[in-house]
């Protein structure tokens, strides 16, 4: 079974520390057709962007919908504070995929800085290897690139675009449209590296819930109305032999995945190469399961014309009956 083959490495929470993850984010992932919106490119943490990204650093910017892949012009980008924004004008209803891939850059770190970075960014496999190999005191010169994408729903029409690969060096691809998935469902997501499934890779998953009140240990309390609550932890998963993790969708809101694939290089001027991938999407309210998927709630509506017809007939019959009766 997929669920067994994909195992949860740990439920231990990982504190979000300062890192340089990159995310494509939206305030709302449900958009109207033929409307303008902005997509935010964060470089820092999911909550806070620490710097903007220059256009010349972008290797690819793509929008996929309706089976087409388009590259928006550089003029569609602008910056505000430390966030880079992409103007998007939606077209027909569909599930859209937006991706950004950056060119590789390099960074040199002394041994301690490199170890700290491995620890803070959750690249524990490499940290363990350095411990095991006795190379904790070895500095590093790393080549790194980031490849991020988001999946958004425009209008009501679900399309197959969510499954289209952007052919980035590393990329998350869900097995199902996230906008068909709701609380109580599972969502399998595959991680591809070089277009092949990447097995045994650590993936961190976070959620962000925008709500007016929430519950801790059975007691509910509310927050200030404009406060965004992020669960201050990420859950770690490890991909199975098919490069797949299985998410147990337990809540609505924004979901984000991040992973950093770091490998040692044996030749050239660089000691390591990393490729970073993130994916964001939202889980909506289309229907919901309660109590661990034991119940299922859907909207069931009487067609209005049926209701109208029956109502008119009843009222007319009653009217004539009462009129006759006097």
């Amino acid at each position: 079974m997929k669920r067994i083959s994909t195992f949860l490495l740990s439920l231990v929470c990982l504190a979000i520390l300062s890192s340089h993850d990159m995310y494509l984010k939206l305030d709302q992932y449900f958009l109207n057709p033929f409307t303008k919106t902005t997509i935010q490119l964060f470089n820092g943490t999911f909550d806070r962007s620490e710097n903007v990204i220059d256009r010349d650093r972008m290797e690819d910017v793509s929008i996929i919908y309706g089976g087409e892949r388009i590259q928006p012009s550089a003029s569609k980008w602008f910056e505000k504070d430390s966030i880079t924004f992409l103007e998007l004008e939606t077209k027909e209803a569909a599930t859209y995929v937006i991706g950004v891939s950056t060119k590789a850059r390099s960074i040199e770190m002394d041994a301690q800085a490199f170890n700290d970075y491995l620890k803070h960014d959750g690249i524990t496999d490499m940290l363990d290897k350095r411990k095991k190999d006795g190379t904790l005191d070895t500095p590093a010169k790393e080549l790194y690139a980031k490849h991020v994408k988001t999946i958004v729903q425009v209008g009501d029409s679900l399309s197959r675009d969510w499954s289209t690969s952007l052919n980035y060096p590393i990329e998350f691809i869900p097995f199902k449209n996230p906008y068909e998935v709701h609380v109580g469902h599972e969502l399998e997501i595959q991680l591809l590296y070089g277009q092949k499934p990447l097995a045994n890779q650590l993936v961190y998953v976070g959620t962000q819930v925008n709500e007016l009140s929430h519950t801790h240990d059975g007691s509910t309390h509310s927050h200030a109305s404009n406060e965004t609550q992020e669960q201050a932890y990420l859950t770690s998963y490890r991909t199975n032999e098919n490069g797949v993790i299985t998410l147990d969708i337990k809540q609505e809101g924004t979901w984000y995945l991040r992973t950093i694939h770091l490998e040692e290089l044996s030749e050239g001027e660089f000691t390591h190469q990393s490729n970073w991938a993130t994916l964001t999407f939202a889980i909506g309210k289309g229907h919901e399961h309660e109590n661990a998927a034991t119940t299922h709630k859907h909207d069931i509506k009487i067609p209005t014309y049926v209701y109208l017809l029956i109502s008119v007939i009843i009222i007319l019959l009653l009217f004539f009956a009462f009129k006759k009766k006097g």
Partner: protein
Amino acid sequence: MNKTIRLLILFLILFWATPLMAHDVTSKDHALLANGDLWAYLWVGAKHMLTGYDHLLFLLGVIFYLRKTSDVIKFITVFTIGHSITLLSATYLGIQINEYLIDAIIGFSVFYKGFENLGYFEKHLKFRSPNLLLMVWVFGLIHGLGLSSRLQSFENGSDRIIHKIITFNIGVEFGQIAALIPIVYIISLIRKNKHYPAFYKAVNTYLLIAGIALICFQLILYLKA
């Protein structure tokens, strides 16, 4: 076609035309609110009042009983205060009660108004109906919970949430006014007709039937869920 029938048809068309045009738009509302500004909340609030036939049936029952304009204003104001209290507070505090149960109670409020308007408390239960104004306020609270559960079913985000709730509430009031104007006008016209008593009984008996149907429908959905 005589005048009575023409008035009756006009009433039915005006009362039901809006729901006919704007029903089943939840997913579009979802997208509209997701992208729109506060005007979107105003629009969706008004539309949900106009298309929520259980709310309109209850209002119809309230209006039918009243003859003076001042009474109409008084009762509608009390109903508005009632549903605003629960709409604002339940949404802000994130209180969600099972929507099927709430809708079943709203269905009961429709039945109740028909029962009261037909004088069945005195006739069948042998006691005077509870204070009319108080009951409209109580049912207003219930209707507000229903509206709140609808508002909470949207992705409202966290930005300016109080503004959104209040704007939605204002939209509900606009929708209510838009629905009441033709209802009050048509009822006032029909009231002058010699067949008004038959029409009064027909519509209020229909409220009994519709109320029971709504209760059963929502309880079936609740049990199925």
